[in-house]
């Protein structure tokens, strides 16, 4: 098997004195959907953010396409072909939908813009209807669509998604998960998905990691984890 697209080895990260990650190892191969599940406060979002240099890891190594990106500034990492739809979506509230999408394409050759915009609007027709509207006035579901579309505008090789289902109606969640499945299947997009909704995430992903207390507690194919008693008890029971 070829080298993984992204490799995280022994990653530590902290917010001030609080150590949120204590030696995390993760590998993501090209073309995969990998999900990271875990309880609140397990360090999932911290892992996603420290992959982007915010906060800078305190120890460990991250390699992307064989290149060590551990010490790089955030904007430099993003320019290498990683994009993130972050926790809380972080739409630019006083910019229109169109301007948000243009911001997503900041690092891309302008020659691709029309084509990429067209693809984003086909993926989320709702955004086309709302293109002149300010980001801050969109509904939660529309903001999530915009956050994913904005991330895709940079033509990433690796797409990081942080809790895209959070706070959304089930019908919107299904639609968003369907889009993730499609971009993976049709464009071969590699996706690293952080989710609390473990059942949906495991159904969608090829492989999964379980994060607890800042460490990887378990990993395997999604089918393995779905069948695992511990995972079922901790993350799947209770109405997910």
């Amino acid at each position, binding site marked *: 098997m070829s080298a993984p697209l992204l490799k995280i080895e022994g990653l530590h990260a902290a917010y001030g004195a609080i150590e949120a990650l204590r030696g995390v190892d993760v590998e993501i191969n090209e073309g995969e959907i990998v999900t990271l599940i875990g309880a609140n406060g397990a360090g999932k979002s911290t892992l996603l953010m420290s992959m982007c240099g*915010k906060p800078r890891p305190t120890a460990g190594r991250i390699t992307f396409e064989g290149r060590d990106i551990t010490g790089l500034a955030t904007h430099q990492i993003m320019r290498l072909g990683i994009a993130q739809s972050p926790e809380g979506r*972080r739409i630019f509230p006083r910019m229109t939908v169109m301007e948000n999408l*243009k911001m997503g394409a900041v690092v891309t050759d302008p020659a691709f813009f029309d084509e990429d915009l067209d693809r984003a609007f086909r993926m989320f027709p709702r955004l086309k209807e709302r293109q002149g509207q300010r980001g801050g006035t969109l509904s939660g579901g529309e903001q999530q669509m915009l956050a994913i579309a904005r991330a895709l505008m940079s033509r990433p090789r690796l797409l990081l998604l942080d809790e895209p289902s959070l706070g959304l109606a089930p019908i919107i969640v299904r639609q968003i998960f369907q889009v993730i499945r499609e971009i993976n299947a049709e464009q071969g997009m590699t996706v690293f998905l952080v989710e609390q909704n473990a059942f949906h995430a495991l159904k969608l992903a090829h492989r999964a990691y379980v994060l607890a207390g800042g460490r990887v507690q378990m990993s395997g194919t999604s089918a393995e984890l779905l069948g695992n008693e511990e995972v079922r008890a901790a993350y799947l029971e209770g109405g997910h």
Partner: protein
Amino acid sequence: MDTAYLIQQLINGLTLGAVYALVAIGYTMVYGIIGMINFAHGEVYMVGAFLSLIGIIVMGLIGVTWVPLALLIVLILAMAITALYGWAIERIAYRPLRGSFRLAPLISAIGVSIFLQNYVQLAQGARPKPIAPVIRGGFELLTSEGGFAVTLSYLQIFIVVLTIALMIGFTYLITQTPLGRAQRACEQDRTMASLIGVDVDRTIAMTFVMGAALAAVAGMMVTLYYGVIDFYIGFLAGVKAFTAAVLGGIGSLPGAVLGGLLIGLIEALWSAYFSVEYKDVAVFAILVLVLIFRPSGLLGRPEIEKV
């Protein structure tokens, strides 16, 4: 107190207001992007005034006598050099302190401000520097029955036209270009801006540079308009332009322009009808009233956003 006199004061006030507006834009843009006041901005304007004065004298010495060309060269040089000052202020006083407690960069900026004042005082002397009028003449618009002639000087036309042109250019830059979008993105969510690949440090530095270049234009206008400058003019002009920015709604570009024009008008009208000595008091009293009854300024509307 006839109409002609009033019209004359309105013209004078708008001219002065245009100068304040240009300086106020620098305050409001920097505030918008880093949420802090650049306390050295008034000094940047003063440096711009001195560079213009030196430039105009040098143009005379090397024999560039066609006024539009000479002014254009001086303007471009003053803007470029002042922009370097703006860049240096950001690098020295703000960037190293980013992420530390909020007061720290303000204090370091006041330090830069004191440094620049003293530096210019040492280099250029403490006495006011006069300069012969460069743009002379004007129109006589009308004469009242009392014999008062309203004049609109070519210099006033030059100041107002240049200000309007710069406003249009700047509005276009902020609303339509990638740099302007990046600036607004940093203003709204700096972390997210870096997550889509925007170089936040560079964008903030560019904002200081742009504000400084505009302050240089204002400095040149004031040199031409009053014909005399000294190392201390940055302080009061800075405070007034800051007042203009707050009056219009800090962070808002149209607000800075409106605030600048209002301050110019208040100052001119108060001087004309009440007392010259208390014109600054009038300006700051208006600021106090606005802050009491409309704390976010005239155009700085706090927006309701969904989270």
